[in-house]
């Protein structure tokens, strides 16, 4: 069976296929009941950032009389089922029972947990639509949904035609026949969309991208306010998941929103009313600093498996005490972070910040969005070039760390004003910058990790009860990280040269000059 192709809402209907529909199909297709009408609970699952939906997949946990079953279906006709085996949600795909379904989901969801997106009770009758060979060419489903989440509501009965692979043409013919029947309203939403709509939601709504549409001639202050409000929305959307520790990416997205906000306040301070940026910069620094320890430990733990697998003189098992130590410290840091995100100080900051942004009005005079973007991005670009050119083989690591920060500022500035530029040219500029950022990021991350391993080893030793094999393995790990760090340092010159080349600079200038055209 493949994903729904044609949906109809079915006014004043019941669980049966209307006689008129049977008659209309009768010359070519027979309607054969598949199994008895059954009632089940449907829970649609996806990652918070809708990775399955974006990949054209739908995952459901279906609970009827028997144990819960997981059903993964795709628009390309893919369908995989597996026993849920008591899986409790949210859950990482890696925690699902082993088999093809888990294999399909693991690469797609990565670090993101699967969590319920919508729930409904369902009464379903299924019918085969068979050709004159008795071969099923499509499935006809009559379903009554009682939405429970995001909101309680009874939905009108739905009739869906789902083609069997290789019989799409026949399914379309059947759908055309149904569309001509009175009482059937074609183009009904897929079931998940219909249930989500009860709460005014739609699948795929969340993204951590700054997807605001700016116009080149709008006042720059209002453009910046729109960006900052979007960042605040993303920040707030990730608070619940971070506090509940659903997966590591809630904190990641929250942290990125904070960093972007800080960059916008720094680069766009002059566009905001006097004193506003200066008032909120320390508050967002507090928030950013709050998230650092947990995120650093997350990065350690997320890369732990790869690091352990790359050991040369030690065995991966030797790192078990180090892993335990990291896990315990992360639990403590996460606890501290969750408390802070539930605190009155955090709530007050978010409330006041939203109030300040909502209250912003266009100044009587001032630049438009395109002028401000050109100035901000141009300045950030020049800073990167200046600091990058000053770096030599003897430069201290701090110089490269500073350059990394400038690159991030430039990247964020490009993202804030993305909607003003030609998408292809913008993508290319970001790609060229990303090449440099990746190199600087690896260099600094390796340095931080190496240093942390040293500090943690000392702490573990001081606390006693640490086997020598664990310390040796940590040394081995640090040495591998050191190798990666040296490799990244070695690559810097060529990466920067590519970014700072004359053609790249000309492309960059042309991009910034072409805002709104």
């Amino acid at each position, binding site marked *: 069976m493949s994903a729904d192709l044609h949906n109809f809402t079915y006014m004043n209907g019941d669980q049966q296929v209307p006689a008129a529909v049977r008659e209309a199909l009768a010359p070519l297709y027979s309607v054969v009941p598949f199994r008895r009408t059954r009632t089940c609970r449907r829970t649609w699952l996806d990652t918070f950032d809708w990775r399955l939906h974006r990949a054209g997949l739908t995952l459901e946990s279906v609970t009827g009389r028997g144990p819960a079953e997981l059903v993964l279906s795709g628009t390309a006709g893919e369908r995989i089922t597996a026993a849920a085996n008591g899986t409790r949600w949210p859950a990482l795909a890696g925690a699902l029972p082993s088999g093809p379904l888990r294999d399909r989901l693991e690469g797609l969801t990565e670090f993101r947990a699967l969590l319920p997106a919508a729930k409904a009770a369902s009464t379903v009758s299924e019918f085969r639509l068979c050709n004159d060979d008795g071969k099923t060419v499509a499935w006809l489903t009559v379903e009554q949904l009682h939405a429970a989440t995001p909101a309680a509501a009874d939905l009108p009965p739905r009739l869906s035609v789902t083609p069997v*692979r*290789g019989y799409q043409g026949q399914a379309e013919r059947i759908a055309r026949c149904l569309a001509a029947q009175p009482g059937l309203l074609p183009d009904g939403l897929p079931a998940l969309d219909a249930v989500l709509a009860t709460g005014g939601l739609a699948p795929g709504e969340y993204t951590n991208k700054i997807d605001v549409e700016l116009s080149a001639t709008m006042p720059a202050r209002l453009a910046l306010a729109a960006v900052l409000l979007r960042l605040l929305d993303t920040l707030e959307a990730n608070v619940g998941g971070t506090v509940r520790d659903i997966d590591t990416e809630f904190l990641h997205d929250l942290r990125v929103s904070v960093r972007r906000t800080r960059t916008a306040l720094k680069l766009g301070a002059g566009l905001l009313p006097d004193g506003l940026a200066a008032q909120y910069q320390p508050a967002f620094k507090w928030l950013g600093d709050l998230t650092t320890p947990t995120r650093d430990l997350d990065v350690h733990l997320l890369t732990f498996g790869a690091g352990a697998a790359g050991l040369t003189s030690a065995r991966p098992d030797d790192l078990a005490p180090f892993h335990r130590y990291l896990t315990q410290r992360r639990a403590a840091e996460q606890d501290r972070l969750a408390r802070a995100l539930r605190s009155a100080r955090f709530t007050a900051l978010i409330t006041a910040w939203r109030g300040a942004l909502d209250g912003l009005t266009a100044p009587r005079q001032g630049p438009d969005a395109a002028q401000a973007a050109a100035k901000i991005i141009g300045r950030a670009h020049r800073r990167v070039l200046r600091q990058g050119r000053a770096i030599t083989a003897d430069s201290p690591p701090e110089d490269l760390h500073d350059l990394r920060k400038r690159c991030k500022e430039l990247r964020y500035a490009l993202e804030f004003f993305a909607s003003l530029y030609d998408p292809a040219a913008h993508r290319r500029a970001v790609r060229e910058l990303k090449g440099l950022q990746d190199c600087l990021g690896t260099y600094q991350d390796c340095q931080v990790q190496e240093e942390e391993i040293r500090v943690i080893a000392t702490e573990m030793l001081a606390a006693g009860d640490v086997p020598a094999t664990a310390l040796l393995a940590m040394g081995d790990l640090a040495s591998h990280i050191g190798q990666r760090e040296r490799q990244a340092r070695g690559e810097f010159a060529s990466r920067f040269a590519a970014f700072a080349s004359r053609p790249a600079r000309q492309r960059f200038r042309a991009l910034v000059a072409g805002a709104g055209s």
Partner: protein
Amino acid sequence: MKILATYNIKGGVGKTAAAVNLSHLAAADGLRVLIADLDPQAAASFLFRVRPRVKGGGAALIRGSRELDKAIKGTDFDGLDLLPADFTFRNLDLILDDTKKPTQRLARLLRPLRASYDMVFLDCPPGISLLSEAVLRAADVVLAPIIPTTLSVRTLDQLTEFIDGLDGHRPEILAFCSMIDRRKRLHKQIAEELPAERKDVAATAIPALSLIEQMAVRRAPVTAFAPRSEAARSYARLWAEVRARAG
């Protein structure tokens, strides 16, 4: 993705019945399964009620994997798809002969299906030909049904020798006694002794039962329309052995 070929030099030994029932059981176990009906007689296609027709015929299919993907049909069973036969498959030897590295062609065509399927069953026509060599090069396991007679055992030896003589990739052989007539003492004797004597013969034997012949009337796997029957239980035992062997 594991590729299993039901193959024997000799015809009428239960290859298609095995491919159809084992593929159904594999899909019922949650695997994503494709059964490819390579026999122009199209028995597997008939049993799954799929018309034996491929757009462009065997030539188009051998030319590119896109055509292969487009030709695949869903069966009436979850997780089980079928590549139908086509009458032009009678010329597959000639078509293959016109390609570069003909014996590696099938393996190459099947490679892109790895993302979509966990297991592929190739239901092959009998005989030794270029196609059978291509099948043997593509398969991980050859499931060879044998009727327990002295001559059939000799055929298994011939098949083993043929596979041993292949250069490069060689599939594993798992033979199994098929169409056992319990009234015949020799059948019973060979079916009992052969698995004990040879590691490449499965412990499960498939009896000759009228219910298996009924598949042609019901046009469905016996494991689907009579899942508690002795025939279905025999195939389930065989599937357990095949699954353990195929890994």
